[in-house]
């Protein structure tokens, strides 16, 4: 499968022929990532990097302006009693709350990401999805997290999925587009690879595992397959695509395993929050607890950290 960029002519590959994935091999490879020993200074640097890559997220029907304001405060002030901490990369909210977040984050480098395209199910017509996305952009979103039509994907209607992503990309301009594959609904790793390839060829700036509403959400094997798809795409086209595992990553140790995987699959170029993000709500506190533990030698308690 190749994308040929020749005289400005782009030839889109046949997505029925994407690579097949050896699941057993993938799981064995992944188990290696969990056995690296990272201690002391390296651990603290890693944890600090994790913090800087978090998309602090709240995507609940019950979200209020107050909840979003509180989360934005946390994004700016992760734990003021520890000097020298980074801020998170972005906050991630529903379109109706983008303007609230935007206002709260004036004067910071923290981006506002909005989910769109009838998140999380994506079961609406394309024009509704475009309107949804346009609204988020008009409200000031710096990044848009869209969902693909999993039903169409399962029906083999890859062109529809491709065109849908391309149409959303079309209205995004400078806004970075993250494409959520919802891997928990895709099934086999082969499908994950295929959906990743479709999303990247259609113009995704980021590919993202999950909405966080379906279990399983992000897992190490799924992320590995997506990282390999990014690597192959970069080798063929020279275009860098970002990666965002989301959902289910709630402790520091696991987050470090993800960073190790990124480093070993894609290299240092991806180890910044421009190219790698964690979609998470409770990860930040666990990382903060570990950092304070490293500095004080005392295991920490939730009692001394802000409530998510």
């Amino acid at each position, binding site marked *: 499968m190749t994308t040929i960029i020749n005289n400005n002519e782009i030839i889109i590959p046949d997505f029925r022929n994407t690579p097949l994935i050896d699941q057993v091999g993938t799981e064995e490879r992944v188990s290696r990532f969990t056995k690296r020993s990272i201690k002391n200074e390296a651990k603290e640097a890693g944890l600090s990097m994790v913090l800087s890559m978090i998309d602090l997220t709240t995507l609940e029907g019950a979200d209020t302006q107050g909840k979003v304001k509180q989360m934005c405060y946390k994004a700016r002030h992760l734990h003021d009693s520890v000097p020298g901490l980074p801020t998170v990369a972005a906050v991630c909210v529903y379109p109706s709350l983008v303007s609230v977040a935007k206002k709260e984050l004036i004067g910071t480098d923290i981006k506002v990401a909005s989910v769109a395209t009838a998140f999380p199910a994506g079961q609406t017509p394309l024009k509704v999805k475009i309107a949804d996305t346009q609204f988020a952009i008009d409200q000031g979103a710096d990044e848009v997290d869209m969902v693909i039509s999993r039903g169409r994907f399962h029906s083999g209607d890859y062109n529809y999925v491709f065109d849908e992503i391309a149409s959303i990309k079309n209205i995004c301009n400078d806004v970075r587009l993250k494409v959520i594959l919802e891997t928990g609904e895709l099934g086999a790793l082969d499908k994950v690879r295929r959906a990743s390839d479709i999303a990247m060829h259609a113009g995704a700036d980021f590919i993202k595992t999950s909405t966080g509403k379906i279990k399983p959400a992000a897992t190490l094997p799924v992320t590995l397959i997506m990282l390999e798809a990014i690597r192959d795409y970069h080798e063929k086209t020279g275009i860098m695509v970002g990666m965002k595992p989301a959902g289910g990553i709630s402790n520091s140790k696991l987050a470090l395993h993800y960073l190790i995987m990124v480093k070993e699959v894609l290299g240092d170029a991806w180890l910044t929050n421009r190219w790698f993000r964690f979609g998470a709500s409770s990860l930040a506190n666990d990382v903060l607890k570990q950092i304070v533990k490293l500095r004080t030698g005392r*295991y920490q308690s*939730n009692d001394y950290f802000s409530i998510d």
Partner: protein
Amino acid sequence: MSKGVKYKNEKRLEILKTYKIYIGGKFPRTESGRYYNPLDSKGNILGNICLSSRKDFRNAVVAARSASVGWSARTAFNRSQILYRLGEILEGRRAQFIEELKIQGSTSAKAEKEVNNSIDRLIYYAGWCDKYQQIFSSVNPVSSSYYNFSVCEPMGVVAIIAPEENSLIGLVSVIAPVVAGGNTCVVLASESKPLCSVTFAEVINSSDVPGGVINILTGNAKELAGHFSSHMDVNAIIYSRTDKEELKNIQINASENMKRVFYWKSDWFSVKAQNPYKIRDLQEIKTTWHPIEQIGGAGSGY
């Protein structure tokens, strides 16, 4: 290695028990992979016992913390039933405990007494589960139009360094009042006599005690006491050994997050070792002011 029941007419290799630690309702080996060999009075090795590390302790605290919400929300009556059940199951395994106590150096008579007292102690605290609240709570007279009352609430996660001698009755005597009051705990068992402490974990495991409510580690107090007392997510610590220097360090460490520190020393065989004040030790008292329309003198209620 422990000497189990001998079969007269059969030649067979004895299957020896692997003594493991008890965290979150499971029996893992220590994360550190280390072990030690306590000896009996004749110098025989009692077993390969897990030498727990600070990470085992950390994992145990996480388990205890997550079990804390559910355990403290159980009805007092249900906690009572579960403690009673512990006694029932221990009763059914008397022979095994007597055997292990003897291997650890006790005499037949003393071992039997220790097991009997341990069962009785569990039943004693089972009885107190739904009664201490009435004794220690109060409605307080105040000179204004408020209804003022004080009630007991469990402290949360309690770290316990269990007695070194009397590894069964000592262990039961420090655990029972803590969990009777709705707390969860992480216990460091006797270092020199750990066998029946680990076997007691099996009793806990088959007694409807939710995973994480009682966690039992084996290992060295000198190594672990610092972590037991400095962990910020531990609300109280009970020390029941004799090293005054160790106790002092525990008190210093505990001051960081204002852990309650208790020094429980007793003749554990005596009935004096059991009383509801041990339950009270691990309770915080919450006092609530509630407005009423008229003060008592006017004949009003609340």
